[in-house]
């Protein structure tokens, strides 16, 4: 049996297990056990993948399984991984693992909460391993829709509004994707063969130019909505701010990556000529997004909004890098997805923990927290430094690679937008250091804060896992970037062909 099936089966079994649990504690324990297995499984998959590659297996896709699902429409259940999707699987399992522990003290309808959370993660795993556009889309929607309940029931602030806004905007994006997918499907056999949703087969077909020009924007914008493409990012700050901790983590950490991954795997890979023609529009939009997100974060006082805008900026950088169409920048894009995924999950976890203690998320109301909760404060500083791209952490590796790759384009347009995008690093430093300075250092301004205790074991486990991820990538990035670069091969090849 294909090991990838376990990525779907374990969450499903965990959900079934949760249904049979009695009290809150059992729910948590079952979820934790399930997601621990999932984390171990991902590690095994990554190691096995690397071992196969080292053994000289150069197949484009490893662990492939292909089953016919709807025969008349030639819809397959086709799964398999390459270097990029393996990396995304690793990211997802780390974040969901940390997310379970970050929501350890959930007491309102915990069973439903964990079921929705794990269902969401199952959708994400399914999305990353799918190689058939139909199943990919199916998992995409499965990943998006639990969000409504998760934010609406367990959220805070204007949660009903945020949940509805987020769901409708993301589903609006998926509406565009749907049309794009149908366009790909009905153009997948220009020579009159059987139509197909198979990504690999479509990538070997020359899709007519006018179709590419029509469907590329649909697909790119459709996935871009989830990847916080400016100006379709507006769901993100509201959604993240209202969502409960684990949901913010999972959403910013993983779900937004579905957008970037979709843009890369579907829009750019399958419609390269269209991408080349129209890239300039989206490069401008993403460059705006990078700067806009960073400036927006400076302007905010609410910790969650700061991090949400920072996510907009970082995710826009992912899309920006994908549109650079060269190996270096695209490797950077995938690295940035992983790096930002772990980093932002860390931030949201910490924000949830800080809020649980201080009962405020406004930066200017807090001060001197370093003295009372050193562990969480240090973790926040680590996350901050990674976010602003300090060498030694994952953020530096990713952003550096992106800007180097982007600057390889000799023409003035690319150079200018790269400079603009790169200048966001300065803005990032401003909002990170400002928050760290105001919130963590200085005198304690509220006597209640003296009573704050530091992180509990499950909070340490959650944040510790994420910090380990950030530093591990920062210190030893090569295995990851090599794996990703190898995975990018077919895409780059196709892009180069389309240029001539």
């Amino acid at each position: 049996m294909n090991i990838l099936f376990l990525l779907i089966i374990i969450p499903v079994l965990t959900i079934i297990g949760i249904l049979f649990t009695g009290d809150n504690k059992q729910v948590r324990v079952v979820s934790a056990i399930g997601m621990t297995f999932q984390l171990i499984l991902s590690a095994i998959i990554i190691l096995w993948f690397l071992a196969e590659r080292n053994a000289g297996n150069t197949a484009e896709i490893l662990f492939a399984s292909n089953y016919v699902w709807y025969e008349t429409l030639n819809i397959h259940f086709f799964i398999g991984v390459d270097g990029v999707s393996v990396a995304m699987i690793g990211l997802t399992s780390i974040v969901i693992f940390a997310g379970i522990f970050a929501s350890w003290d959930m007491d309102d309808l915990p069973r439903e909460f964990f079921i929705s959370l794990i269902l969401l993660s199952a959708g994400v795993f399914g999305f990353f391993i799918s190689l058939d556009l139909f199943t990919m889309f199916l998992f995409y929607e499965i990943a998006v829709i639990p969000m409504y309940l998760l934010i609406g029931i367990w959220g805070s602030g204007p949660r009903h509004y945020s949940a509805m806004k987020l769901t409708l905007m993301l589903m609006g994006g998926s509406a565009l994707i749907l049309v794009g997918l149908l366009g790909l499907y009905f153009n997948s056999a220009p020579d009159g063969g059987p139509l197909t949703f198979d990504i690999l087969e479509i990538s070997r077909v020359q899709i007519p130019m006018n179709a590419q020009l029509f469907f590329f924007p649909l697909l790119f914008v459709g996935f871009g909505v989830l990847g916080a493409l400016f100006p379709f990012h507006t769901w993100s700050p509201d959604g993240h701010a209202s969502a409960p901790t684990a949901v913010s983590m999972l959403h910013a950490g993983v779900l937004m990556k579905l957008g970037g991954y979709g843009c890369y795997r579907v829009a750019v890979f399958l419609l390269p000529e269209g991408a080349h023609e129209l890239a300039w529009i989206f490069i401008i939009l993403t460059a705006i997004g990078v700067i806009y997100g960073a400036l927006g974060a400076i302007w905010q006082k609410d910790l969650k909004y700061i991090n949400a805008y920072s996510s907009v900026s970082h995710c826009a950088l992912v899309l920006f890098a994908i549109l650079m169409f060269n190996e270096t920048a695209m490797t950077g894009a995938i690295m940035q997805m992983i790096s930002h995924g772990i980093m932002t999950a860390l931030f949201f976890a910490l924000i949830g923990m800080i809020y649980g203690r201080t009962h405020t998320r406004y930066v200017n109301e807090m001060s001197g927290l370093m003295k009372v909760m050193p562990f969480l404060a240090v973790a926040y500083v680590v996350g901050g430094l990674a976010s602003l791209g300090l060498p030694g952490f994952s953020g530096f590796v990713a952003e550096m690679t992106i800007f180097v790759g982007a600057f390889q384009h000799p023409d003035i347009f690319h150079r200018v937008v790269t400079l603009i995008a790169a200048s966001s690093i300065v803005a990032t430093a401003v909002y990170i250091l400002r928050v760290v300075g105001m919130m963590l250092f200085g005198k304690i301004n509220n006597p209640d804060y003296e009573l704050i205790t530091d992180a509990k074991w499950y909070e340490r486990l959650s944040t510790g896992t994420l910090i380990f991820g950030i530093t591990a990538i920062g210190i030893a990035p090569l295995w990851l970037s090599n794996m990703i670069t190898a995975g990018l091969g077919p895409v780059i090849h196709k892009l180069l062909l389309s240029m001539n």
Partner: protein
Amino acid sequence: MLMLIMRHELLLVLITVILLLVEIFLPADRKQKIILPALILFGVVMILGFIPGPTGRLFGGMYITTPLTLLMKNILTVGVFIVFLQSVDWLKKEENREKISEYFILLLSTLIGMEYMLSSGDFLMFYLGLELATIPLAALAAFERFKEKSAEAGVKLIFTSALSSGILLYGLSMIYGTVGTLYFSDVVNGINGAPLQILAFIFFFAGMAFKISVVPFHLWTADVYEGAPINITSYLSVISKGAAVMILTILLFTVFSKVAIMWKDVVYVTAILTMTIGNLFAMRQKNLKRFLAFSSIAQAGFIFLGIIGQSQLGMTTVIYFVLVYIFSNLGAFGVVAVISNRTGKEKIDDYDGLYRTNPMLSLTMMLALFSLAGIPPVAGFFGKFFLFAAAAQQGLYILVLIAVLNTIISLYYYLLVVKAMFLNRSDRPIEYFKSDGYSRLGLAICIAGLVIIGIYSPIYEFINQFTFGIY
């Protein structure tokens, strides 16, 4: 043996006659006892329908049975069976006890009418079936005659049906006038798009549009749906509409296939109008019955996307979607019916906090609504996807885009109900109650259908092998 060709209808007639006889001899205080035997009888007929049997023509080609019509009839009987299960609780009410067998007889007569309509081989048979399917429904809509709204619904339904039948008949008479025959197989060759035939088609289409409640012929729908007893509403919006859609599809694909260029524009425009207007009105509804009424108008618009494909994909998908739609809508209506029978509450606001008191009902409702909205993994997703594919196959990407954006609007109002049930809190939520066994069985069938029909692809393939090449 020849009569086996008509076995569906004959068996139904048989049950109806048995029920009529029993009704005569049964003392008034024991009428409630008829429910279970009637259900069992109908269940047996439903199962018998699935046994393969002879196909062919009767009465000189006026009546045709093909594997396709058998399939459609089976789909309808399954739907009617669920409706029956969901009505038991309501029939046991004090005020309805006297009329239990009437309910069964009337509903079965409409079903017989629909089956004759689906099997019709000429326009006369088609018209007879259509009328038989419609007139008892007016009586059923006015079933709760002590309620003003129910009586109003009955009158509205009979008037609009009469009007639409008149329009339809006028169209048919013009077809007869230009072609000189009513047999489908002969009409096909006679239709060439002459001006009078275009007029005839418009009349015919308008008449059918009334029955399917397609915009702009939808105005009767909301009032009738709101006033009629809830089980009749679900019957109207699911079975009756489903049958009308299927026969319209068959007629457009066969009889009017040569003039497709003529009807495609009509379907294109009405599809957009129906989806959009149905959705926009559904957003504003506070009463769940009206809400589902407008949502079912919008769904009809989506079905037109499959019709416009005029391909095997389109035909299969229309039938597949009707099947999915039966389970989704009956699931939603089933929950509304259960709650309405027990508490009399029918407003969306009344459902605030329902999940915390009645989790199973809320989950059923959510799955049914997600299926209507086309959210995976429930069957509605597959149905919608294939409908869009059928339209995209013809290159109608703009239409698909409009339709897909309409699903987002529809998702908004379906989520409003989900929001009421799951997100909102209420001081006085609907209290916990245990629904009756029959309703639960009905809802369980719906859920099973919703989950299985999508993921289990052989159902689609099974439908696919019968479609096209009909007649």
